[in-house]
């Protein structure tokens, strides 16, 4: 499980960097999204992975229940929410950029610099 996730995170980071380096501005946004996912998974794995146990148990009386650490899950949820916000804004930005400049090519971006 750990190995699988590690490989997955690596693949996600790789794809994200590849997409970020593309000239197409929409692919840039896709790259940002992938980067966000990779990091969420990294957060999940780095803060200790316990699989197969619930993160919340209602009654703990008498029995020693095994549970997974709920905090990383809460952190990831927060990171996902924030990622959603940034992605939404980036999409609007890209759309506006396209309708104002009429291009999706990032090279035209640096034209006036």
């Amino acid at each position, binding site marked *: 499980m750990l190995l699988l996730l590690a490989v997955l995170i690596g693949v996600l980071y790789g794809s994200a960097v590849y997409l*970020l380096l593309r000239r197409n*501005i929409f692919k*840039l946004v896709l790259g*940002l999204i992938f*980067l*966000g996912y990779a*990091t*969420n998974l*990294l*957060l*999940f794995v*780095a*803060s*200790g992975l316990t699989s197969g146990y619930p993160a919340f148990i209602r009654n703990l009386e008498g029995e020693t229940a095994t549970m997974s650490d709920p*905090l*990383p899950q809460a*952190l990831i949820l*927060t*990171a996902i929410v*924030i990622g959603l*916000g*940034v992605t939404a*804004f*980036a999409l609007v*930005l*890209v759309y*506006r*950029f396209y309708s*104002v*400049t009429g291009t999706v090519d*990032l090279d035209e*971006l640096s034209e*006036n*610099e």
Partner: protein
Amino acid sequence: MILVLPIMLPLLFMVALIFTRRWLAFQQVFSLIASFALTFLSALLLAEVSRKGIMTLQLGGWPAPYGITLVVDLLSAIMLTTTSFVALVVMIYSPGFIDKERQTAGYYPLVFGLLMGVNGAFITGDIFNMYVWYEVMLTSSFVLIALGGSAEQLRGSVKYVTISFVASIFFVSAIGIMYGQAGTLNMADLAYKMRSWEEMPYMNSALMLFFIAFSIKAALFPFFFWLPASYHTPPVAITALFAGTLTKVGIYTMMRFYSLFVVEDVMFWKIFLLVIAGLTMTVGVLMAASQFDIRKILSFHIISQVGYMVMGLVIFTPQAVAAAIYFTVHNMLSKTGTFLAGGLVYQRSGSYDLKYLGGLYKSMPFLALLFFVPAMSLAGIPPLPGFFGKLFLVKGGFAAGDYLITGVAIAVGLFTLFSMVKIWNEAYWKSEPENMPAPSRVSNLTLAASSLLVLAVILLGVFVGPVMKITHEAAVQLTDPLIYIQAVLGKQ
């Protein structure tokens, strides 16, 4: 209770401003009063903290290492006060400068959203919570920088959004690794565990990730390139607000983290950061010298000045850190001041480009004064605060025996003077170019805002003694992290 107000009040103001978004006049007056209230509140907080020592609040009643703690020490209080004062000035400046379309498109609520994030980052005692406040601040700044949607702004904001997001990614990854190592997110608890535990193998990697995240935010060498590519695009009032607050949050976080978390390999971090600081100063000032747009010269100067703050921090004696804090306060005021004065030039002559400007000293001596004071302060001319800031930094550097970096700092000061004089010569002293458009009226409110800021800069220089006393106390708290740890955890 007073500790939640710096976060909750801006939120409340933001909500009120969203509900009243159709009434522009009300928004202008309300945001003025609101930012005044915030300034008053943070000044109150500063007085309270300097009397009672570090104040803490456990949000939701959850005890310290588990819940989110809000902590205000002197450094936080100083930063809060300066930020809200800068915001107050920008709020006076904005109605006369920013066009109606942008003002009704949500400018005022967004500024308070930004302030909520900045204040939150200043007072939180929890690293993940700090990330959340960073994002609140960044999201507001994303919208602010793109507000109005001109092609140039959109170009700038694509770069800004991308680099900020990447910085946030570094931040979260570092938090994940740190949590995996220590099992806590509370900054004081983390610092305590790092001091008492033997094995923390990945701590330096986490710190390096943190360093990258914050140095992107604070625009340190080699991560500064985004700043001059995006900061000059929105209306200058927004740029001034960003210059005065956003990059300084990066510096604040760096100060906090360096003080709390750099336990192992102190020598490595010190040398590494000193090299970075020296390069940041030099590269920033050299790049500035080659520019001709007022906003770009000033943007590159932000970078150069950030180097000084890092230098003071890393020397890490109470004198040097006190000087760094004083320098930060001075920089927030003077930097905003020069940007606002640049805006006045634009309002009067319709250009930021030095090649098309001239004769402003002759036609408008008062406006010239409004630029002259903060600019000379940045360059470090004697009776102004920039001089004292650099003097104390240099003194601290020599006292600690870091001669090389101190020498670099002095040399960079000369170059700063060069580019400030360049703006002065070109825009104010040079005779008026022939094809210069007829001067337009400068609104009184913007003049008043600039004057208020210039007054603050002068006062900061006049009262250098008392101010340095406060920053020295702040530096003592910062250089002895045990005070912070004890205040939050309440043990040992």
